[in-house]
Protein backbone atom coordinates (compact mmCIF):
# COMPACT_ATOMS: atom_id res chain seq x y z
CA UNK A 1 0.00 0.00 0.00
CA UNK A 2 2.97 2.31 0.47
CA UNK A 3 5.08 1.04 -2.38
CA UNK A 4 4.66 3.93 -4.75
CA UNK A 5 5.20 6.58 -2.12
CA UNK A 6 8.82 5.73 -1.38
CA UNK A 7 11.05 8.63 -2.23
CA UNK A 8 14.77 9.10 -2.17
CA UNK A 9 15.42 11.67 0.45
CA UNK A 10 18.17 14.21 0.11
CA UNK A 11 19.27 14.38 3.71
CA UNK A 12 19.10 12.16 6.74
CA UNK A 13 19.35 14.86 9.37
CA UNK A 14 19.16 14.53 13.10
CA UNK A 15 16.57 17.28 13.18
CA UNK A 16 14.28 15.37 10.82
CA UNK A 17 14.82 12.17 12.80
CA UNK A 18 13.80 14.00 15.97
CA UNK A 19 10.75 15.49 14.26
CA UNK A 20 9.57 12.04 13.19
CA UNK A 21 10.26 10.56 16.65
CA UNK A 22 8.11 13.24 18.26
CA UNK A 23 5.29 13.11 15.70
CA UNK A 24 4.96 9.35 15.74
CA UNK A 25 5.36 8.82 19.47
CA UNK A 26 2.72 11.51 19.99
CA UNK A 27 0.35 9.95 17.46
CA UNK A 28 0.85 6.44 18.87
CA UNK A 29 0.93 7.78 22.46
CA UNK A 30 3.92 5.64 23.43
CA UNK A 31 7.18 6.20 25.27
CA UNK A 32 10.87 5.40 24.74
CA UNK A 33 11.11 8.96 23.41
CA UNK A 34 14.19 9.91 25.40
CA UNK A 35 16.10 6.81 24.29
CA UNK A 36 15.28 7.48 20.64
CA UNK A 37 16.19 11.19 20.82
CA UNK A 38 19.52 10.29 22.36
CA UNK A 39 20.67 8.39 19.22
CA UNK A 40 19.30 10.74 16.54
CA UNK A 41 22.70 12.27 15.71
CA UNK A 42 24.40 8.86 15.62
CA UNK A 43 21.80 7.50 13.19
CA UNK A 44 22.04 10.66 11.09
CA UNK A 45 25.78 10.05 10.72
CA UNK A 46 25.36 6.36 9.95
CA UNK A 47 22.47 6.59 7.49
CA UNK A 48 23.46 9.97 6.07
CA UNK A 49 27.19 9.42 5.61
CA UNK A 50 28.55 6.03 6.56
CA UNK A 51 26.47 2.98 5.74
CA UNK A 52 26.96 1.53 2.30
CA UNK A 53 23.52 0.10 1.50
CA UNK A 54 22.79 0.05 -2.25
CA UNK A 55 19.49 -1.67 -1.43
CA UNK A 56 18.14 -3.19 1.79
CA UNK A 57 18.71 -6.70 0.44
CA UNK A 58 22.12 -6.31 -1.24
CA UNK A 59 24.26 -9.18 0.07
CA UNK A 60 27.33 -6.98 0.39
CA UNK A 61 25.61 -4.07 2.10
CA UNK A 62 27.00 -2.90 5.40
CA UNK A 63 24.97 -4.43 8.23
CA UNK A 64 23.45 -2.34 10.99
CA UNK A 65 22.03 -3.76 14.19
CA UNK A 66 20.09 -1.58 16.58
CA UNK A 67 20.88 -3.62 19.63
CA UNK A 68 19.05 -1.10 21.82
CA UNK A 69 15.89 -2.03 19.98
CA UNK A 70 13.70 0.22 22.09
CA UNK A 71 14.99 3.16 20.03
CA UNK A 72 13.38 1.65 16.92
CA UNK A 73 11.45 4.82 16.15
CA UNK A 74 14.72 6.62 15.49
CA UNK A 75 15.68 3.81 13.10
CA UNK A 76 12.33 3.98 11.29
CA UNK A 77 12.86 7.72 10.92
CA UNK A 78 16.32 7.20 9.42
CA UNK A 79 15.02 4.50 7.08
CA UNK A 80 12.21 6.80 5.92
CA UNK A 81 14.57 9.71 5.35
CA UNK A 82 16.94 7.40 3.50
CA UNK A 83 14.08 6.35 1.25
CA UNK A 84 13.94 2.69 2.33
CA UNK A 85 10.67 3.08 4.19
CA UNK A 86 7.70 4.95 2.73
CA UNK A 87 7.03 7.96 4.95
CA UNK A 88 3.33 7.13 5.01
CA UNK A 89 4.16 3.77 6.59
CA UNK A 90 5.49 5.66 9.60
CA UNK A 91 1.87 6.42 10.39
CA UNK A 92 1.37 2.73 11.19
CA UNK A 93 3.88 2.86 14.07
CA UNK A 94 2.35 0.76 16.89
CA UNK A 95 -0.90 0.27 14.96
CA UNK A 96 -2.55 -3.13 14.64
CA UNK A 97 -1.06 -5.38 11.95
CA UNK A 98 1.90 -3.03 11.51
CA UNK A 99 5.50 -4.03 10.83
CA UNK A 100 6.55 -0.99 12.84
CA UNK A 101 6.43 -2.02 16.48
CA UNK A 102 8.20 -0.53 19.47
CA UNK A 103 11.15 -2.81 18.65
CA UNK A 104 12.39 -3.44 15.10
CA UNK A 105 11.42 -6.57 13.15
CA UNK A 106 13.67 -8.05 10.48
CA UNK A 107 10.65 -8.64 8.24
CA UNK A 108 10.68 -4.89 7.57
CA UNK A 109 12.90 -3.91 4.64
CA UNK A 110 16.00 -2.19 5.95
CA UNK A 111 16.01 -3.96 9.31
CA UNK A 112 18.74 -6.60 9.26
CA UNK A 113 17.87 -8.22 12.59
CA UNK A 114 15.03 -8.15 15.06
CA UNK A 115 16.06 -6.78 18.42
CA UNK A 116 14.42 -5.82 21.69
CA UNK A 117 16.10 -8.18 24.13
CA UNK A 118 19.24 -6.40 25.28
CA UNK A 119 22.61 -8.11 25.13
CA UNK A 120 22.07 -10.06 21.92
CA UNK A 121 22.98 -7.58 19.18
CA UNK A 122 26.75 -7.67 19.62
CA UNK A 123 26.82 -11.47 19.26
CA UNK A 124 24.84 -11.29 16.04
CA UNK A 125 27.06 -8.47 14.82
CA UNK A 126 30.15 -10.51 15.65
CA UNK A 127 28.83 -13.42 13.59
CA UNK A 128 27.99 -11.07 10.73
CA UNK A 129 31.49 -9.56 10.84
CA UNK A 130 33.06 -13.02 10.91
CA UNK A 131 30.93 -13.97 7.90
CA UNK A 132 32.08 -10.89 5.96
CA UNK A 133 35.69 -11.81 6.61
CA UNK A 134 35.17 -15.45 5.62
CA UNK A 135 33.47 -14.32 2.41
CA UNK A 136 36.25 -11.85 1.74
CA UNK A 137 33.69 -9.06 1.55
CA UNK A 138 34.55 -5.42 2.27
CA UNK A 139 31.26 -4.91 4.08
CA UNK A 140 31.34 -3.68 7.65
CA UNK A 141 29.05 -4.34 10.57
CA UNK A 142 27.80 -1.56 12.83
CA UNK A 143 25.98 -2.17 16.06
CA UNK A 144 24.44 0.45 18.32
CA UNK A 145 24.43 -0.51 21.99
CA UNK A 146 23.05 1.24 25.02
CA UNK A 147 25.25 1.85 28.03
CA UNK A 148 22.81 -0.01 30.29
CA UNK A 149 22.96 -2.90 27.85
CA UNK A 150 26.56 -3.33 28.93
CA UNK A 151 25.08 -4.82 32.13
CA UNK A 152 24.40 -7.97 30.10
CA UNK A 153 27.11 -10.62 30.50
CA UNK A 154 26.49 -12.10 27.06
CA UNK A 155 27.68 -8.87 25.48
CA UNK A 156 31.14 -9.43 26.93
CA UNK A 157 31.27 -12.97 25.52
CA UNK A 158 30.93 -11.38 22.10
CA UNK A 159 33.45 -8.65 22.94
CA UNK A 160 36.05 -11.31 23.79
CA UNK A 161 35.46 -13.30 20.60
CA UNK A 162 35.56 -10.23 18.36
CA UNK A 163 38.84 -9.03 19.83
CA UNK A 164 40.43 -12.50 19.90
CA UNK A 165 39.67 -12.88 16.19
CA UNK A 166 40.55 -9.26 15.40
CA UNK A 167 37.27 -8.47 13.69
CA UNK A 168 38.35 -5.05 12.50
CA UNK A 169 35.26 -4.77 10.30
CA UNK A 170 33.09 -4.60 13.42
CA UNK A 171 32.19 -1.16 14.79
CA UNK A 172 30.20 -0.87 18.00
CA UNK A 173 28.78 2.44 19.14
CA UNK A 174 27.77 2.79 22.77
CA UNK A 175 25.06 5.37 23.38
CA UNK A 176 26.45 6.60 26.68
CA UNK A 177 23.46 8.57 27.90
CA UNK A 178 24.11 7.48 31.49
CA UNK A 179 20.53 6.51 32.12
CA UNK A 180 18.49 3.35 32.24
CA UNK A 181 14.88 2.45 32.87
CA UNK A 182 14.78 2.93 36.62
CA UNK A 183 17.67 5.29 37.28
CA UNK A 184 21.03 6.73 36.35
CA UNK A 185 23.61 4.12 35.36
CA UNK A 186 25.96 5.30 38.11
CA UNK A 187 23.28 4.45 40.66
CA UNK A 188 22.20 1.15 39.15
CA UNK A 189 25.42 -0.64 38.09
CA UNK A 190 28.33 1.72 37.81
CA UNK A 191 30.88 1.19 35.05
CA UNK A 192 33.91 3.19 36.16
CA UNK A 193 35.20 3.87 32.63
CA UNK A 194 33.41 2.66 29.53
CA UNK A 195 36.37 3.14 27.13
CA UNK A 196 38.81 1.45 29.52
CA UNK A 197 36.44 -1.47 29.94
CA UNK A 198 36.41 -2.07 26.18
CA UNK A 199 40.16 -1.56 25.95
CA UNK A 200 40.60 -4.22 28.61
CA UNK A 201 38.73 -6.56 26.28
CA UNK A 202 41.17 -5.73 23.49
CA UNK A 203 39.07 -3.24 21.54
CA UNK A 204 40.14 -0.03 19.89
CA UNK A 205 38.09 2.44 21.93
CA UNK A 206 37.55 6.17 21.68
CA UNK A 207 35.21 8.60 23.30
CA UNK A 208 33.39 11.28 21.33
CA UNK A 209 30.43 13.64 21.35
CA UNK A 210 27.42 11.56 20.37
CA UNK A 211 25.54 14.66 19.24
CA UNK A 212 28.16 15.80 16.77
CA UNK A 213 27.30 13.91 13.58
CA UNK A 214 30.30 15.35 11.75
CA UNK A 215 32.67 14.18 14.48
CA UNK A 216 31.10 10.71 14.47
CA UNK A 217 31.41 10.51 10.68
CA UNK A 218 35.05 11.60 10.78
CA UNK A 219 35.88 9.15 13.52
CA UNK A 220 34.36 6.21 11.64
CA UNK A 221 36.05 7.16 8.37
CA UNK A 222 39.38 7.15 10.20
CA UNK A 223 38.93 3.62 11.55
CA UNK A 224 41.01 0.82 10.10
CA UNK A 225 38.28 -1.68 9.26
CA UNK A 226 40.64 -3.89 7.26
CA UNK A 227 43.08 -4.93 9.98
CA UNK A 228 43.56 -4.72 13.71
CA UNK A 229 41.11 -4.95 16.58
CA UNK A 230 37.36 -4.27 16.50
CA UNK A 231 36.31 -0.71 17.22
CA UNK A 232 34.05 0.93 19.74
CA UNK A 233 32.94 4.55 19.77
CA UNK A 234 31.80 5.53 23.21
CA UNK A 235 29.37 8.27 22.25
CA UNK A 236 28.59 10.63 25.11
CA UNK A 237 24.98 11.65 24.74
CA UNK A 238 22.22 13.37 26.62
CA UNK A 239 19.14 11.30 27.19
CA UNK A 240 16.18 13.08 25.56
CA UNK A 241 18.53 15.39 23.65
CA UNK A 242 16.83 18.34 21.97
CA UNK A 243 13.78 18.59 24.20
CA UNK A 244 14.62 20.56 27.32
CA UNK A 245 12.04 19.06 29.65
CA UNK A 246 13.04 15.50 28.69
CA UNK A 247 16.78 15.85 28.93
CA UNK A 248 18.30 13.68 31.68
CA UNK A 249 14.83 12.88 33.06
CA UNK A 250 14.25 9.23 34.00
CA UNK A 251 10.49 9.44 33.47
CA UNK A 252 10.93 9.98 29.72
CA UNK A 253 12.21 6.45 29.30
CA UNK A 254 8.61 5.26 29.31
CA UNK A 255 6.41 8.37 29.48
CA UNK A 256 4.27 9.48 26.51
CA UNK A 257 3.71 13.19 25.70
CA UNK A 258 0.65 15.33 26.28
CA UNK A 259 -0.46 17.66 23.49
CA UNK A 260 1.10 20.67 25.24
CA UNK A 261 4.39 18.87 25.74
CA UNK A 262 4.36 17.74 22.12
CA UNK A 263 3.96 21.31 20.83
CA UNK A 264 6.78 22.59 22.99
CA UNK A 265 9.02 19.67 22.00
CA UNK A 266 8.36 20.21 18.28
CA UNK A 267 9.12 23.92 18.62
CA UNK A 268 12.41 23.24 20.39
CA UNK A 269 13.51 20.67 17.82
CA UNK A 270 12.54 22.92 14.91
CA UNK A 271 14.50 25.85 16.34
CA UNK A 272 17.55 23.89 17.45
Amino acid at each position, binding site marked *: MFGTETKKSTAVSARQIRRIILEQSRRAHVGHIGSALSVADILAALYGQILNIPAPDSPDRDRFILSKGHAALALYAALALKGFLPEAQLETFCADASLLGVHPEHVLDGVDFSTGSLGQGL*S*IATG*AALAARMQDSPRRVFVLLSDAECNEGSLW*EAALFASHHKLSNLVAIVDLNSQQALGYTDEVLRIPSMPKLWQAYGWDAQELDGHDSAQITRAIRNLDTAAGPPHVLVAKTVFGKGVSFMERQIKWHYWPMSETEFKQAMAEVANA
Partner: protein
Amino acid sequence: MRKALIATLSALARREPRIVLLTGDLGYTVVEPFREEFPERFFNAGVAEQNMIGMATGLAESGFIPFVYSIATFAALRPYEFIRNGPVLHRLPVRVLGIGAGFEYGSAGPTHHALEDLAALRPYPGLTLVCPADCTQAQNALLKTWDLPGPVYYRLSKNDQLQVPELEGRFDLARTQVLRNGEDLLLIALGTMAANALAAAEALALKGVQSTVLALSSFNPSPDSDLAEWLSRFSLAISVESHSVSGGAGSLISEIIAERALNCRLVRCGVRTAPDGLSGSTAYLEEKHGISGEALARTALREMEYARYSK
Protein backbone atom coordinates in the same frame (compact mmCIF):
# COMPACT_ATOMS: atom_id res chain seq x y z
CA MET B 1 26.88 -40.87 17.56
CA ARG B 2 29.10 -37.79 17.92
CA LYS B 3 31.93 -39.16 15.82
CA ALA B 4 29.57 -40.57 13.19
CA LEU B 5 27.84 -37.23 12.94
CA ILE B 6 31.07 -35.26 12.61
CA ALA B 7 32.22 -37.72 9.91
CA THR B 8 29.04 -37.12 7.93
CA LEU B 9 29.28 -33.38 8.53
CA SER B 10 32.84 -33.41 7.19
CA ALA B 11 31.70 -35.32 4.11
CA LEU B 12 29.00 -32.70 3.52
CA ALA B 13 31.44 -29.87 4.14
CA ARG B 14 33.71 -31.17 1.38
CA ARG B 15 31.11 -30.25 -1.20
CA GLU B 16 29.25 -27.52 0.71
CA PRO B 17 31.33 -24.44 1.54
CA ARG B 18 28.52 -22.87 3.56
CA ILE B 19 28.95 -25.37 6.43
CA VAL B 20 30.73 -23.97 9.49
CA LEU B 21 31.30 -25.68 12.86
CA LEU B 22 31.37 -23.78 16.14
CA THR B 23 32.00 -25.43 19.48
CA GLY B 24 31.54 -24.17 23.00
CA ASP B 25 34.96 -25.56 23.95
CA LEU B 26 33.67 -29.13 23.98
CA GLY B 27 34.11 -32.19 21.80
CA TYR B 28 37.63 -33.34 22.71
CA THR B 29 38.55 -36.29 20.42
CA VAL B 30 35.33 -35.67 18.47
CA VAL B 31 35.56 -32.38 16.56
CA GLU B 32 39.25 -32.58 15.65
CA PRO B 33 38.78 -34.28 12.24
CA PHE B 34 36.59 -31.40 11.10
CA ARG B 35 38.98 -28.80 12.55
CA GLU B 36 41.95 -30.39 10.81
CA GLU B 37 40.23 -30.65 7.45
CA PHE B 38 38.48 -27.26 7.53
CA PRO B 39 40.50 -25.02 9.84
CA GLU B 40 39.06 -21.90 8.25
CA ARG B 41 35.52 -23.09 8.96
CA PHE B 42 36.00 -24.21 12.53
CA PHE B 43 35.74 -21.87 15.53
CA ASN B 44 36.03 -22.56 19.21
CA ALA B 45 33.68 -19.94 20.63
CA GLY B 46 35.03 -20.58 24.11
CA VAL B 47 32.83 -21.29 27.10
CA ALA B 48 30.28 -18.78 25.84
CA GLU B 49 27.20 -20.51 24.49
CA GLN B 50 24.99 -17.45 24.25
CA ASN B 51 27.49 -15.70 22.01
CA MET B 52 27.95 -18.89 20.02
CA ILE B 53 24.26 -18.97 19.08
CA GLY B 54 24.20 -15.21 18.47
CA MET B 55 27.18 -15.49 16.14
CA ALA B 56 25.60 -18.43 14.36
CA THR B 57 22.59 -16.18 13.74
CA GLY B 58 24.80 -13.53 12.16
CA LEU B 59 26.67 -16.13 10.11
CA ALA B 60 23.45 -17.72 8.87
CA GLU B 61 22.00 -14.38 7.78
CA SER B 62 25.12 -13.94 5.65
CA GLY B 63 24.58 -17.27 3.89
CA PHE B 64 26.41 -19.80 6.06
CA ILE B 65 24.97 -22.97 7.60
CA PRO B 66 26.50 -22.93 11.08
CA PHE B 67 26.51 -26.05 13.27
CA VAL B 68 27.04 -25.34 16.96
CA TYR B 69 28.26 -28.10 19.26
CA SER B 70 27.97 -28.49 23.00
CA ILE B 71 26.55 -30.70 25.72
CA ALA B 72 22.78 -30.67 25.29
CA THR B 73 22.00 -28.66 28.42
CA PHE B 74 24.55 -25.98 27.49
CA ALA B 75 23.55 -26.02 23.83
CA ALA B 76 19.81 -25.75 24.37
CA LEU B 77 19.19 -24.18 27.75
CA ARG B 78 21.98 -21.69 28.50
CA PRO B 79 21.45 -19.81 25.22
CA TYR B 80 17.72 -20.54 25.11
CA GLU B 81 16.59 -16.95 24.50
CA PHE B 82 19.31 -16.53 21.88
CA ILE B 83 17.86 -19.52 20.02
CA ARG B 84 14.39 -18.02 20.36
CA ASN B 85 15.26 -14.53 19.19
CA GLY B 86 17.93 -15.64 16.74
CA PRO B 87 17.47 -18.60 14.39
CA VAL B 88 13.86 -19.24 15.40
CA LEU B 89 12.62 -15.67 15.06
CA HIS B 90 14.69 -14.99 11.93
CA ARG B 91 14.01 -18.48 10.45
CA LEU B 92 17.70 -19.03 9.78
CA PRO B 93 19.48 -22.35 9.14
CA VAL B 94 21.38 -22.66 12.42
CA ARG B 95 21.92 -26.26 13.58
CA VAL B 96 22.32 -26.93 17.28
CA LEU B 97 24.07 -30.21 18.14
CA GLY B 98 23.14 -31.12 21.72
CA ILE B 99 25.24 -34.00 23.01
CA GLY B 100 24.18 -36.32 25.82
CA ALA B 101 20.45 -37.06 25.62
CA GLY B 102 18.86 -37.69 29.00
CA PHE B 103 21.13 -39.33 31.57
CA GLU B 104 24.09 -40.08 29.30
CA TYR B 105 26.40 -37.90 31.39
CA GLY B 106 25.35 -40.07 34.36
CA SER B 107 27.80 -39.40 37.15
CA ALA B 108 28.50 -35.87 35.91
CA GLY B 109 25.32 -35.01 37.77
CA PRO B 110 22.14 -33.04 37.17
CA THR B 111 23.79 -30.00 35.55
CA HIS B 112 24.70 -32.32 32.67
CA HIS B 113 21.43 -34.26 32.37
CA ALA B 114 19.31 -33.06 29.44
CA LEU B 115 15.82 -33.83 30.69
CA GLU B 116 13.80 -30.86 29.46
CA ASP B 117 15.55 -29.65 26.31
CA LEU B 118 12.76 -30.87 24.05
CA ALA B 119 10.07 -29.44 26.30
CA ALA B 120 11.80 -26.08 26.13
CA LEU B 121 12.25 -26.13 22.36
CA ARG B 122 9.01 -27.78 21.38
CA PRO B 123 6.77 -24.68 21.25
CA TYR B 124 8.49 -23.29 18.14
CA PRO B 125 6.76 -24.48 14.97
CA GLY B 126 9.70 -23.59 12.74
CA LEU B 127 12.34 -25.39 14.81
CA THR B 128 12.94 -28.94 13.60
CA LEU B 129 13.75 -31.34 16.45
CA VAL B 130 15.60 -34.54 15.58
CA CYS B 131 16.30 -37.28 18.15
CA PRO B 132 18.22 -40.13 16.51
CA ALA B 133 18.03 -43.61 17.98
CA ASP B 134 21.44 -44.76 16.81
CA CYS B 135 24.56 -43.71 14.92
CA THR B 136 23.42 -44.77 11.46
CA GLN B 137 20.07 -43.05 11.83
CA ALA B 138 21.85 -39.92 13.08
CA GLN B 139 23.93 -39.84 9.91
CA ASN B 140 20.92 -40.43 7.71
CA ALA B 141 18.91 -37.79 9.58
CA LEU B 142 21.71 -35.29 9.08
CA LEU B 143 21.80 -36.03 5.35
CA LYS B 144 18.05 -35.41 5.17
CA THR B 145 17.94 -32.22 7.23
CA TRP B 146 21.25 -30.34 6.96
CA ASP B 147 19.98 -27.99 4.25
CA LEU B 148 16.51 -27.25 5.59
CA PRO B 149 15.80 -23.52 5.36
CA GLY B 150 14.99 -23.14 9.07
CA PRO B 151 16.79 -24.07 12.30
CA VAL B 152 17.31 -27.65 13.56
CA TYR B 153 18.10 -29.04 17.00
CA TYR B 154 19.73 -32.49 17.07
CA ARG B 155 19.43 -34.34 20.38
CA LEU B 156 22.38 -36.69 20.16
CA SER B 157 23.88 -39.56 22.04
CA LYS B 158 27.47 -39.40 23.20
CA ASN B 159 27.65 -43.17 22.78
CA ASP B 160 29.67 -43.76 19.61
CA GLN B 161 28.78 -47.49 19.56
CA LEU B 162 25.02 -47.12 19.76
CA GLN B 163 23.36 -49.24 17.06
CA VAL B 164 19.80 -50.42 16.71
CA PRO B 165 20.02 -52.99 13.88
CA GLU B 166 16.22 -53.22 13.53
CA LEU B 167 16.16 -49.56 12.51
CA GLU B 168 18.45 -50.07 9.52
CA GLY B 169 19.22 -46.35 9.65
CA ARG B 170 15.77 -45.32 8.47
CA PHE B 171 14.73 -41.70 9.06
CA ASP B 172 12.08 -39.45 7.65
CA LEU B 173 10.71 -36.21 9.00
CA ALA B 174 7.21 -36.57 10.48
CA ARG B 175 7.38 -40.38 10.37
CA THR B 176 7.93 -43.12 12.95
CA GLN B 177 9.87 -46.29 12.23
CA VAL B 178 8.62 -49.75 13.21
CA LEU B 179 11.30 -51.76 14.98
CA ARG B 180 9.30 -54.80 16.03
CA ASN B 181 5.78 -56.10 15.58
CA GLY B 182 3.51 -57.53 18.25
CA GLU B 183 -0.18 -57.40 19.04
CA ASP B 184 -0.38 -57.04 22.81
CA LEU B 185 1.33 -53.75 23.53
CA LEU B 186 2.67 -50.63 21.83
CA LEU B 187 6.00 -49.20 22.97
CA ILE B 188 6.93 -45.77 21.56
CA ALA B 189 10.55 -44.84 22.20
CA LEU B 190 11.97 -41.36 21.89
CA GLY B 191 15.40 -41.25 20.24
CA THR B 192 18.04 -43.18 22.17
CA MET B 193 15.39 -45.05 24.16
CA ALA B 194 14.72 -47.31 21.18
CA ALA B 195 17.38 -49.73 22.43
CA ASN B 196 15.79 -49.86 25.90
CA ALA B 197 12.32 -50.37 24.47
CA LEU B 198 13.59 -53.23 22.32
CA ALA B 199 15.25 -54.82 25.36
CA ALA B 200 11.94 -54.54 27.19
CA ALA B 201 10.09 -56.10 24.25
CA GLU B 202 12.55 -58.98 24.26
CA ALA B 203 12.02 -59.59 27.98
CA LEU B 204 8.26 -59.33 27.57
CA ALA B 205 8.27 -61.84 24.73
CA LEU B 206 9.78 -64.40 27.14
CA LYS B 207 6.68 -63.84 29.27
CA GLY B 208 4.41 -64.30 26.29
CA VAL B 209 3.70 -60.60 25.68
CA GLN B 210 4.23 -59.48 22.08
CA SER B 211 5.05 -55.80 21.54
CA THR B 212 5.18 -53.41 18.68
CA VAL B 213 8.06 -50.97 19.10
CA LEU B 214 8.10 -47.60 17.33
CA ALA B 215 11.05 -45.26 17.06
CA LEU B 216 10.10 -41.61 17.52
CA SER B 217 13.02 -39.67 16.10
CA SER B 218 11.35 -36.80 14.29
CA PHE B 219 9.97 -34.91 17.28
CA ASN B 220 9.14 -31.79 15.30
CA PRO B 221 7.56 -32.08 12.80
CA SER B 222 5.89 -34.77 14.88
CA PRO B 223 4.67 -37.95 13.19
CA ASP B 224 1.04 -37.34 14.16
CA SER B 225 -0.53 -39.53 11.47
CA ASP B 226 1.76 -42.48 12.10
CA LEU B 227 1.28 -42.24 15.85
CA ALA B 228 -2.50 -41.96 15.54
CA GLU B 229 -2.58 -44.93 13.21
CA TRP B 230 -0.61 -47.13 15.61
CA LEU B 231 -2.34 -45.89 18.76
CA SER B 232 -5.73 -46.69 17.26
CA ARG B 233 -4.74 -50.38 17.03
CA PHE B 234 -3.84 -50.84 20.72
CA SER B 235 -5.61 -50.49 24.05
CA LEU B 236 -2.33 -49.92 25.93
CA ALA B 237 0.68 -47.88 24.88
CA ILE B 238 3.84 -46.99 26.78
CA SER B 239 5.91 -43.95 25.92
CA VAL B 240 9.61 -44.20 26.74
CA GLU B 241 11.83 -41.16 27.02
CA SER B 242 15.03 -40.14 28.75
CA HIS B 243 13.36 -36.78 29.28
CA SER B 244 10.73 -35.29 31.52
CA VAL B 245 7.32 -36.84 30.89
CA SER B 246 6.12 -33.25 30.76
CA GLY B 247 6.74 -31.66 27.40
CA GLY B 248 8.35 -34.66 25.74
CA ALA B 249 7.16 -37.81 24.01
CA GLY B 250 4.54 -38.61 26.66
CA SER B 251 3.00 -35.18 26.27
CA LEU B 252 3.02 -35.38 22.48
CA ILE B 253 1.35 -38.79 22.43
CA SER B 254 -1.20 -37.72 25.06
CA GLU B 255 -2.20 -34.81 22.87
CA ILE B 256 -2.73 -37.05 19.88
CA ILE B 257 -4.85 -39.49 21.90
CA ALA B 258 -6.93 -36.66 23.36
CA GLU B 259 -7.38 -34.61 20.20
CA ARG B 260 -8.30 -37.63 18.10
CA ALA B 261 -10.34 -39.27 20.87
CA LEU B 262 -8.42 -42.52 20.50
CA ASN B 263 -9.37 -45.42 22.73
CA CYS B 264 -5.90 -46.18 24.05
CA ARG B 265 -4.52 -45.93 27.56
CA LEU B 266 -1.08 -44.32 27.71
CA VAL B 267 1.52 -44.96 30.40
CA ARG B 268 4.25 -42.36 30.29
CA CYS B 269 7.68 -43.64 31.30
CA GLY B 270 10.21 -40.91 31.81
CA VAL B 271 11.47 -38.50 34.42
CA ARG B 272 8.89 -37.37 36.97
CA THR B 273 10.97 -36.37 39.98
CA ALA B 274 13.45 -33.62 40.85
CA PRO B 275 17.15 -34.46 41.26
CA ASP B 276 17.83 -35.83 44.75
CA GLY B 277 21.60 -35.43 44.77
CA LEU B 278 22.33 -39.11 44.08
CA SER B 279 24.30 -39.63 40.90
CA GLY B 280 25.64 -42.72 39.19
CA SER B 281 25.94 -44.44 35.87
CA THR B 282 23.49 -43.98 33.02
CA ALA B 283 22.23 -47.51 33.67
CA TYR B 284 21.64 -46.72 37.36
CA LEU B 285 19.75 -43.54 36.57
CA GLU B 286 17.66 -45.12 33.83
CA GLU B 287 16.71 -47.97 36.16
CA LYS B 288 15.92 -45.51 38.93
CA HIS B 289 13.63 -43.49 36.66
CA GLY B 290 11.93 -46.55 35.23
CA ILE B 291 13.27 -46.37 31.69
CA SER B 292 15.79 -49.24 31.63
CA GLY B 293 14.75 -52.26 29.60
CA GLU B 294 14.01 -54.25 32.78
CA ALA B 295 12.07 -51.44 34.42
CA LEU B 296 10.01 -50.94 31.29
CA ALA B 297 9.19 -54.66 31.13
CA ARG B 298 8.07 -54.59 34.79
CA THR B 299 5.90 -51.56 34.14
CA ALA B 300 4.37 -53.19 31.07
CA LEU B 301 3.48 -56.39 32.95
CA ARG B 302 2.01 -54.41 35.85
CA GLU B 303 -0.09 -52.27 33.57
CA MET B 304 -1.36 -55.25 31.58
CA GLU B 305 -2.29 -56.95 34.84
CA TYR B 306 -4.10 -53.80 35.93
CA ALA B 307 -5.93 -53.68 32.62
CA ARG B 308 -7.11 -57.27 33.05
CA TYR B 309 -8.42 -56.58 36.56
CA SER B 310 -10.22 -53.42 35.61
CA LYS B 311 -12.10 -55.03 32.73
